[in-house]
């Protein structure tokens, strides 16, 4: 009996894929096209009058210093979240690997934060760090730190980075753990016999072999920092103070929904989309080459 790899039916594949394509079209392509269309208009919030203004929205954005500052803020934010997220979870995964007793408990507990919604995570950390009420804030004041993230932009950025990273650590942890399992023990044992210290073993064997996972997580973390952290920012600092935590995606929401500036907001969305597409292309074409499989 011959095993056939080729699928026989002519129409079944399309039918099976149709629901996913429908969702992608309705929830991704259609809004993207509409955003693109809106970015060329200036219209009143109620949609009663709109005028076609070519690239004026884009020109206004480029001249807006706050928008350019938002770029910088987003870069700092996503770098901080991705770097600390990956570093901390890698450390935790390596340590969890070595533990023999109670390993399952550690691993289970370390995974739980991922189940928390970003907005809830934001509120949790905001409470802990709240200037007048929070426990951590209390201890900081005791140590002499003047903690008020409503006024101090650096402190606000620290708060949102902590809240955003905390959530993502579990996700990274899971992947790193799986990645570590796939490294052949024989390699590590051979290195140990040759006299390599644990640190040496890690950097020369484990880390390079983990590179597919690390690369994948880098992409995921950057996209997470760009978009999924909206809930964290909205629940804690709302982009303040003085725009210190106003990342690009939050500015899109603020200008469009709260400010009723649909044209400017749509233009920002288009630019954001272009950035992420560009980032993904760059990462897959160039960084992928350095990954050792």
């Amino acid at each position, binding site marked *: 009996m011959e095993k056939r790899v080729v699928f026989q039916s002519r129409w079944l594949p399309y039918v099976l894929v149709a629901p996913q394509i429908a969702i992608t079209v309705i929830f991704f392509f259609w809004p993207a096209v509409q955003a693109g269309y809106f970015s060329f208009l200036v219209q009143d919030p*109620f949609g009663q009058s709109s005028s076609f203004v070519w690239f004026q929205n884009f020109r206004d954005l480029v001249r807006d210093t706050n928008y350019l500052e938002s770029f910088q803020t987003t870069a700092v934010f996503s770098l901080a979240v991705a770097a600390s997220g990956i570093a901390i979870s890698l450390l935790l995964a390596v340590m969890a690997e070595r533990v023999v007793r109670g390993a399952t408990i550690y691993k289970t507990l370390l995974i739980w934060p991922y189940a928390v919604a970003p907005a809830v995570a934001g509120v949790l950390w905001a409470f802990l760090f709240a200037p007048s009420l929070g426990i951590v804030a209390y201890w900081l004041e005791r140590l002499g730190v003047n903690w*008020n993230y409503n006024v101090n932009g650096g402190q606000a950025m620290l708060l949102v980075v902590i809240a955003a990273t905390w959530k993502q650590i579990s996700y990274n942890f899971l992947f790193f753990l799986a990645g570590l399992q796939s490294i052949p023990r024989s390699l590590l044992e051979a290195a140990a016999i040759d006299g390599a210290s644990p640190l040496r073993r890690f950097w020369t064997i484990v880390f390079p072999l983990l590179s597919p996972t690390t690369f994948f997580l880098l992409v995921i973390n950057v996209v997470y920092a760009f978009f999924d952290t909206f809930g964290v920012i909205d629940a804690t600092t709302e982009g303040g*103070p003085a725009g210190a935590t106003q990342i690009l995606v939050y500015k899109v929401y603020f200008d469009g929904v709260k400010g009723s500036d649909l044209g400017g907001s749509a233009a920002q969305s288009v630019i954001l989309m272009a950035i992420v597409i560009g980032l993904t292309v760059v990462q897959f074409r160039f960084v992928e080459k350095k990954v050792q499989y």
Partner: protein
Amino acid sequence: MIRKILVAAAASLAAALPVHAQTEIQWWHSMDGALGDKVNELANKFNASQKDYKVVPVFKGTYPESMTAAIAAYRAGNAPHILQVFEVGTATMMAAKGAIVPVYKLMKDADEPFNPKAYLGPVSGYYTDPKGNMLSFPFNSSTPVFYINKDEFRKAGLDPSKPPKTWKEFLADADKLKASGQACVYTTSWPSWVHIENFSAWHNVPIGTKENGMAGLDTEFKINTPLHVRQIAMLGDLAKKNMFRYAGRTNQGGAKFTSGECAMLTDSTGAQANIGRDAKFEWGVSELPYWDDVKGAPQNSIIGGASLWVMGGKTNNAYKGVAKFFSFLSRPEIQMDWHTATGYVPITTAAYELTKKSGYYAKYPGREVAIKQLMNKPPTANSKGLRFGNFVQGRAVIEEELEAVFSGKKDAKTALDDAVRRGDEILRKFEAANK
């Protein structure tokens, strides 16, 4: 047998149908907690008083959230009949000509009595067009007032029955409070509303040209005068000494006062409900301080809060119901009930008189401060209110610049100049979109 059952079922169905169809009126609002309960109470009272219309209040989130929801709903054809919009959304709503039905027109078409002069000056002034027609129905209006922690005042050797009248006295009291060990002497809620918008009106200086935007879309901000710089520089200076602790852009300052952390507070008159419930010290309410070297100060303060707008595209029958509901809400007893329960000001003179007569202010003098401050003098072009397009964004810009001063990043003059520049950009965009 089955036939009998079917007949019985049909009969009971027919009996279940209402004798005459009630017209439902959807009312989207942003009153949460105890305020929301009061809103439901008002709607139930109205519904019980007549059979033709049923007002259905729906809590749709905060003011910006419900306004956004209504705009989106309007675009989709499902707007509510009545929408509660906060004062900063007034310009946006007014410019949306087809999307709203002006209240004066609604009441006239429905033959319901409606007299703009029955409303307190600053209240009606805010919501009328340059011709004097009221475009929205005032509902919950507040104004900022000054709160002091009387216990802390006594500890500092200050007389708690003599709160500071001027900002000079305020600074002197602040120093005494600090000397007596009170680390934080002042905090505020709604920084732009208190220290820019009301500050300007209280000193009879303009916030923007063209009567603060009421007389034309080509208005420009004027909030970087030496007087404004003086005020914001004072706050920045206090912030540097950590005597002024900034808590956030909305009503977060209230919590710092109620907890006893800060001894003085500027906040909405509506904050009295929470302070009364939660403060464990004696507290007092007084009028906002002013700079006594400014001619014309104190003038009168302007309102905050929200009003009710009627959305377009509904049936005439529904509009009759809305008009009847508005007449119901204007009754002095209803107004008095709403005012005493919530801390918002009574919006008609009749309601104010009724509350006075009932001896309410003798028992709670703090509740009258807001009204006295609003009616201090007849409003001028600078103190009728404001009407800036996209002011949600505009206020956010002002607050961002104020935060830069409070955190020491900018000096007051640069921040206010930037606020004017960025604010004007937003105004020009609104003007272009609504030509």
